[in-house]
């Protein structure tokens, strides 16, 4: 089989899928398999590493190398693999509990080191596998088994957290938008460095409809802002609204009242604009949520990586040391 001739099916393993029927994970799985085939990756050079949670079952369903590890630690395991194997295409599949709660430390340090891996955060704003407790991304006041009187805690602003940790690629998509997801997955894979892709994923058992504002086609128009490089930031029922920068403050305006050059044109490589998008637009209720590649920069390259083997002479000199003596 020649590289590039594989189909999405070739990336599917022989294991039965065990997610709840109707789970958003199915759609993501299909798009990942499609993208790998489309980009001409080989099965044996691709590795999926996950932690614990519903999403972390993902590697079992991929006909690639994979590890379903322990809770929160996929990023740390992937770091060791990345540093010793430059040749592999490494993906981390994680959830909001796995990487934002128990594995939060590894997530931020992975992003700080900017190792070349693709991290897919399946965010469903709930603990699914443990049957419905609130997560660090759950909305305030959400009633769950562990918050019967409503969630008292503020949710993480996921993109801001990653931006703060120094992520070099920050993107978001949603399970229901197959085409968008596919396109963003391709960009995620192509970026050199740690690529962070948050995927809003509906858990229809424990947190159904939490992303309805962005998945329902009519609501989506008002609540979601799909970013594209070189295009203005436009949304609204009839795409009549736009975002404009007023100094350093983002402002919602009527698109037609301004000429194109007066509107905010998306440039994912602009760090200042990314900061405003992430910290001021994405986190404020009067603005739509961001989708697409929000921020992308060239690899930080903070850690050089040159695995090789010890030479015998080097080792012999080292064993002997600089102050040895001979006993006859």
């Amino acid at each position, binding site marked *: 089989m020649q590289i590039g001739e594989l189909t999405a099916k070739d990336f599917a393993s022989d294991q039965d899928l065990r997610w709840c029927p109707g789970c958003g994970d199915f759609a993501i799985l299909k798009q990942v398999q499609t993208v790998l085939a489309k980009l001409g990756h080989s099965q044996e050079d691709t590795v999926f590493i996950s932690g614990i949670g519903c999403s972390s079952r993902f590697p*079992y369903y991929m006909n690639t*190398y994979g590890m379903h590890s322990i809770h929160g630690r996929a990023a740390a*395991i992937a770091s*060791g693999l990345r540093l010793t194997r430059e040749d592999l295409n490494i993906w981390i599949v994680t959830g909001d509990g796995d990487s934002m709660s128990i594995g939060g430390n590894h997530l931020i340090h992975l992003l700080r080191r900017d190792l070349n891996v693709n991290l897919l955060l399946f965010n469903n704003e709930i603990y699914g596998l443990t049957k419905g407790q609130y997560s660090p991304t759950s909305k305030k006041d959400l009633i769950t088994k562990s918050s019967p009187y409503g969630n008292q805690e503020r949710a993480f602003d996921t993109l801001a957290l990653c931006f703060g940790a120094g992520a070099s690629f920050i993107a978001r998509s949603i399970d229901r938008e197959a085409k968008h997801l596919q396109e963003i997955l391709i960009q995620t894979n192509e970026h050199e460095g740690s690529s962070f892709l948050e995927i809003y994923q509906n858990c229809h058992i424990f947190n159904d409809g939490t992303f309805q504002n962005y998945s329902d086609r009519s609501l989506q128009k008002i609540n979601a802002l799909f970013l594209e490089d070189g295009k203005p930031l436009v949304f609204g029922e009839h795409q009549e609204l736009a975002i404009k920068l007023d100094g350093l403050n983002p402002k919602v305006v009527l698109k037609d009242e301004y000429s194109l050059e007066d509107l905010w044109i998306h440039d994912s490589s602009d760090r200042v604009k990314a900061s405003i998008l992430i910290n001021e637009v994405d986190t404020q209720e009067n603005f739509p949520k961001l989708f697409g590649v929000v921020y992308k920069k060239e690899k930080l390259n903070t850690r050089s990586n040159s*695995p*090789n083997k010890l030479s*015998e002479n080097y080792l012999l000199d080292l064993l002997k040391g600089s102050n040895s003596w001979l006993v006859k």
Partner: protein
Amino acid sequence: MIAEVKDSISIKFAGDSGDGMQLTGTQFTDNTALYGNDFATFPNYPAEIRAPQGTIHGVSGFQIHFGSFEINTPGDEFDVLVAMNAAALKDSLKSLKKTGLLIVDIAGFDKKNLRLAAFDPEEDLLEESRFSDYHFIKIDISSLSKEALKEIDLDPKQKDRSKNMFVLGLLLWMYGRNLQSVEDFIETKFRKNPLLKEANLKVLRTGFYYGETAELQSYKKEIKAAKLEPGTYRNIMGNKATALGVMTAAFKANLNLFYASYPITPASDILHELAKHAKAGVQSFQAEDEIAAVCAAIGASFGGALGATGTSGPGMALKSEAINLALMLELPLLVIDVQRAGPSTGMPTKTEQSDLLFAMYGRNGESPIPIIAAHSPGNCFEAVYWACKIAIEHMTPVIFLSDGYLANGSEPWKVKDLKDLPEIQPVYLSAEDTQEEAFLPYKRNADLVRSWVQPGTKNKQHRIGGLEKELVSGNVSYSPENHQKMTDIRAEKVALIAKKLPEQTIMAGAKSGKVLVIGWGNTTGAIKSAVLELLKEAKEVAHAQINFIHPFPENLANILNSFDKILVPELNNGQLIKLLKVAFPNNKFYALNKIQGIPFKKSEIKDAILNLLG
């Protein structure tokens, strides 16, 4: 005047933690090594980098015992005590032998120092009559050092810091040495600072010539070179030997080495050593925490490198879950635990052997993992080499136990010839299995070991994880029978390693008799010297020190059965003895425990043996 010839001398350098006593000790040790004496050292210092100056808490000590015959311990008591201040004197005088030599720096006994050491500031502590049991030399080391440097443009503080070189020079003179090794060291260390180089060399020589001028010739002693087995020797500390052992194992197995660690006392020096060799093929990784360190090592092993991680007790507790993951994945993983006094943060710079049962049982579920313990600084090399060999050849995590005393202690080490080390052969897929259409990741060889198939291998894609595996196929399985079988296999796989281990040897004494002293880890020297002394008195006693604790070597049963009573000294509340009692229920074991953060004294072991002999 010809110096008196002695078999051995034990010296303790004691001062404030800022006085440079560790440097004095290690330089004296290097010089001793080159001179050809056998030796054992014991650095003992506070956890704080700059502990409260002048107080007992701030005392930093370095003990060295060197001789013309086999030296096994730093010595229960010392022949010479150098006390740089009142606190050091208070801390260490009790262990100076009667008629021993006491050298003090007068400057360290002013009113302030007396007060800080909780003496009466008004009393004349250094009055001769108080020390009539000892040979007593008072020197104003600080002033003499400063005087020697009066022409050199350094501030008084910097001048004062060179006083440890005076001590070093004086002691080297006393034992008939030359200054070459220390001069070389100073030249290199202060290459970029000619002023400090000149100052240190000057004070070193001032100390060296002081003995002559002050007519201290009567204290000169000669300790002839020891008769060691022929070969090339070097002075080595346990942590260094550990690092070199891991590197050598990776080399012999033809693997990349990946060492991931989070800084922790007393294991950090292994990370420091390995980090030095980044350009020569060693990858070291300072992880964000203990868990990340072990997990990164597992990731590296998954990719086909030798994944290793090192820590101390608190870190072991954090790594427990991930070590179990490696056990389920059946991947090689080296876990180094340089033990320290616990529980919790405990006493970070003090030694203990209290993680053994944690290494054995400190994980959820049925979790059999091989355990190998080093028993001397130099032995760290071979013991960790074996730990790597077992991890690689048996596809399992292995716990290597060292401890603070071994880690920082040093001894002459005969440099190993690579040819003399056993081969290490990773378990790769056989040619036959490579041909097979369906790949079965948990298919096992005769040793119950699965093959190490790494990402990148065509047509062998597979998924592994922490969930229970189905026999052979490695698919996830919740079947009750399968779980029973897999649990049994994991235990059997580790038990079978016993067949591959070197035989347990007797270190001293006959192969049978009344009392066998069995030890592990840093108790070697104290036990061996106690047993050797009793053998001279014709007592029926022998000594075995075990490297392989899980599983035990196959011949251990025969050795135990050849003795009436078995004494098990440990720096814990009785851990190895529990394992021995379970494995060998018919033998009579007697515990000797000490849990004070310091090693056993020879006398303590000797008394316990005599007690058993009746």
